[in-house]
C-alpha cells in the first residue's frame, strides 16, 4: 500500500463528465491549474476506440464557450452541426402531426445557440485534451475497493493496493455512482417504465439543421441533426414495446422506424448499432458529502427529452470549479464545507428545475387519451402551454439562464 502524493482533486470516472471536469480543474480552463487524478477502472483510450457510443448531445452556447475556454472547441467544431430550427409536434404515430411550435433558433453574433455532436467525438476530443495536460494524472485500470471520506483528505483505495489521496473527491462515475453510494447519499426518483432507443440514421435529403421533437403517444421521438445527411434519434417507447423493437432484425426495425420518422428526408438507413436504455428520473438527495461532490449523472439523471444531460454535467463542473477555486486561491480548504456548501447552493435549484421540467413535459405528452389530446390541441390551452414550453426550449437551448459560472461565460475558472 502506498500513496505517492496528495492530489487537489480526484475524479472518479473518466467519461464525458469526468474528462470535462478534469480540464476545468487542471487544464488551460483554470488560471490556477490544480493537480488532478482521474480514476477509472476502464482505460478511456479503449472507450474512445471500442465500438461506439451511439448517443449525441446538444451543446449549448454556454457549453461551447466553456469548451473554448478549456481549449477543446477547435477539435469538436468539425463534428458539430448547428441547430438552426426546432420543430415540436404533437401527433399520432401514423396520423397528422400538428406543429405546436416551430421556431428558428436565433443566431447570435458569436454563432448558433446550440449544436449537435456525437458523444464519441466529444469523448475523443476531451480525452486528447486531457492527455496533453501534465497536471492531470490517469489512475486507470483498477477498481476502487474502498473510499475514505473522513479527515482532511479523501482516500481512494484501489484494488492494486495504491491509495489515491486528494483534498476533494469528485464523483463523475455515472448513475450507479460507487462514490455516491460509499458516502451514503440517497437518491429520489422513479422509473418511467420507458426505454430510450438511440441510434443514428442516414437519409437522402438534407435536414437543414432542423431538430424535430415529435410527442408521440408512447413518448417523445426526437430527430437531431448531425453533420452531413445524418441524424441522431432518441426514440422513447414503453418498456415492453422497446424490448420488442430491439429484438427485431434490422429490416423490421427500420420499417418501424420509418413509420415514426416520416418521409420528409427521403430514404432512411441505419447508420449505427441501436442501443436502448431504461429511462428514469433521479436526483441525489444531496450533491455533496464531506470531501465529496457529485456531478453529472452521479448527481442527476433527467429525461433525455431535451438532450440536456451532458449540459447539466458541464454546468456542474463549471460551478464546482468556481466554488473550489474561490477557496483554493485564498489558501482555504478546496474540499472543505465552505466550498461544498457554495456548490450545493448554486446547483441545487437548477438541477431540480430541469428535472421537473423534463419530467412534466414527458408526462404531459406521453399518453394517447383522446380527451387529453383534444384539450392539448384546443386553442387556448395550447397557447397557454406554448409560451412556457417555448421559453423552456429557448432558455435551455442557449444555456444562458441564471448566474453563470466563469467557464460558461468563456473565461477560465
Amino acid at each position, binding site marked *: 500500500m502506498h500513496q505517492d502524493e496528495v492530489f487537489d482533486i480526484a475524479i472518479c470516472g473518466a467519461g464525458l463528465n469526468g474528462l470535462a471536469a478534469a480540464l476545468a480543474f487542471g487544464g488551460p480552463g483554470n488560471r490556477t491549474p490544480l493537480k488532478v487524478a482521474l480514476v477509472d477502472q476502464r482505460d478511456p483510450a479503449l472507450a474512445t476506440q471500442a465500438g461506439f457510443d451511439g448517443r449525441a448531445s446538444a451543446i449549448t452556447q454556454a457549453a461551447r464557450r466553456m469548451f473554448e475556454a478549456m481549449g477543446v472547441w477547435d477539435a469538436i467544431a468539425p463534428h458539430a452541426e448547428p441547430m438552426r430550427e426546432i420543430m415540436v409536434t404533437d401527433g399520432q404515430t401514423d396520423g397528422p402531426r400538428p406543429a405546436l411550435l416551430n421556431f428558428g433558433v436565433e443566431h447570435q453574433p458569436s454563432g448558433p445557440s446550440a449544436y449537435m455532436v456525437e458523444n464519441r467525438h466529444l469523448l475523443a476530443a476531451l480525452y486528447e485534451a486531457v492527455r496533453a495536460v501534465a497536471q492531470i494524472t490517469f489512475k486507470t485500470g483498477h477498481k476502487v475497493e474502498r473510499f475514505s471520506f473522513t*479527515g482532511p483528505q479523501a*482516500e481512494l483505495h484501489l484494488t492494486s493496493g495504491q*491509495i489515491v489521496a486528494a483534498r476533494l473527491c469528485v464523483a463523475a462515475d455515472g448513475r450507479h455512482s460507487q462514490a455516491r453510494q460509499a458516502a451514503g447519499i440517497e437518491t429520489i426518483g422513479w422509473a418511467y417504465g420507458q426505454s430510450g432507443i438511440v441510434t443514428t440514421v442516414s437519409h437522402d435529403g438534407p435536414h437543414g439543421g432542423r431538430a424535430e421533437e415529435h410527442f408521440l403517444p408512447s413518448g417523445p421521438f426526437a430527430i437531431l441533426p448531425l453533420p452531413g445527411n445524418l441524424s441522431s434519434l432518441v426514440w422513447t417507447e414503453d418498456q415492453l414495446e422497446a424490448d420488442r423493437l430491439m429484438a427485431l432484425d434490422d429490416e423490421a426495425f427500420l420499417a418501424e422506424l420509418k413509420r415514426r420518422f416520416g418521409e420528409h428526408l427521403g430514404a432512411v438507413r441505419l447508420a449505427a448499432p441501436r442501443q436502448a436504455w431504461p429511462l428514469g428520473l433521479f436526483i441525489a438527495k444531496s450533491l455533496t458529502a464531506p470531501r465529496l461532490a457529485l456531478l453529472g449523472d452521479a448527481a442527476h439523471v433527467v429525461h433525455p427529452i431535451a438532450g440536456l444531460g451532458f449540459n447539466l454535467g458541464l454546468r456542474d463542473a463549471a460551478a464546482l470549479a468556481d466554488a473550489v477555486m474561490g477557496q483554493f*486561491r*485564498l*489558501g*482555504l480548504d478546496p474540499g472543505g*464545507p*465552505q466550498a461544498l456548501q457554495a456548490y450545493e447552493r448554486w446547483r441545487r435549484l437548477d438541477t431540480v428545475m430541469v428535472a421537473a421540467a423534463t419530467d412534466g413535459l414527458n408526462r404531459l405528452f406521453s399518453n394517447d387519451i383522446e380527451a387529453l389530446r383534444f384539450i392539448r390541441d384546443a386553442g387556448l390551452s395550447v397557447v397557454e402551454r406554448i409560451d412556457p414550453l417555448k421559453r423552456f426550449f429557448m432558455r435551455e437551448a442557449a444555456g444562458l439562464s441564471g448566474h453563470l459560472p466563469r467557464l460558461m461565460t468563456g473565461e477560465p475558472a
Partner: protein
Amino acid sequence: MQPLLRSSLGKRLEMSGQISVDDAEVAKFSALAAEWWNPSGKFGVLHKFNPVRLAFIREQVTARFGRDPMAREPLVGLKLLDIGCGGGLLSEPMARLGALVTGADPSEKNIKTALVHAAEQGLAIDYRVAAAEDLAAEGMKFDIILNMEVIEHVRDPAAFMGVTAAMLKPGGVMITATLNRTFKSFALAIVGAEYVLGWLPKGTHQWEKFITPDELSGMLKSGGLVPREPVGVTYNPLSGEWRRARDTDVNYMALAERPH
C-alpha cells in the same frame, strides 16, 4: 485516525522544536482543533470573516512583492508572522499560499491546538507560545506581518505596535485589522455581536480599547512605517457575508510599508 495520518502527525509534531504535544494530549487538542475549524461552530463568525481578510492580504501582498496572484503558491519564500494566531485560521492559508509562516500566540492551549491541526493538514508552520516581545528579542525579521484583531486586546497598543513594526524588513508590509471606536462599533460589535446575536462570548471586546484609524496611523508612523488608507469591512445581514467597504466605522484593515 488513519495510520497514514498518525505517522505524518508524529513527524510534524517532532519537527517543531519550540513546543511539543505528547501523545496523550493529541486527542484532546485534535477535538479542540475540530471546534476551531468548524465553520458552523463557536468560531463560525471568524470563518465568515476569513475570506474577506484573506482576499485583502493576497491582493495587497502579491501587488507589493510583484507576485502573480493566480499562481498556485504566490507567497512562496516570503517570511510571514501571524501575531495572535489562535488556532491558525490565518496561518494555515498563508502556509498553503507558500509563505514561511511563524504563528505566535501567548496561549499554550491555542498553540497546541494549532500545531495538531496543521499536522493533520500536512502543513509545516513554526508555531510558538510567545508574545511579540519574545520574537523581537530573538531578532526575528519578516517580509509580512499580520496583526489581525489583536491590537484591541493588548494592554499597551502603542508599545505593542512599536515592537511588531521593528520586526518588519525594509520593503516589508504589515497588515493590521482592528475595530474603530465609534458609536456604531459600540452598537454593532459590543451590543450586537456579543449580546444580541451571541456571535462572541460576552466580554470578548472592551469598547474603550478600540482604536481609531488616526490613532493606528500615528502608531504605525512612530514605528517607522508608511501607512496606507484603511479599508472598511462591513457585514451584510441579508447575504450573511462580510465585504470590503469604504465604511471604516466598525471593522477596518490597514496596510503599512517599511520603506527600503
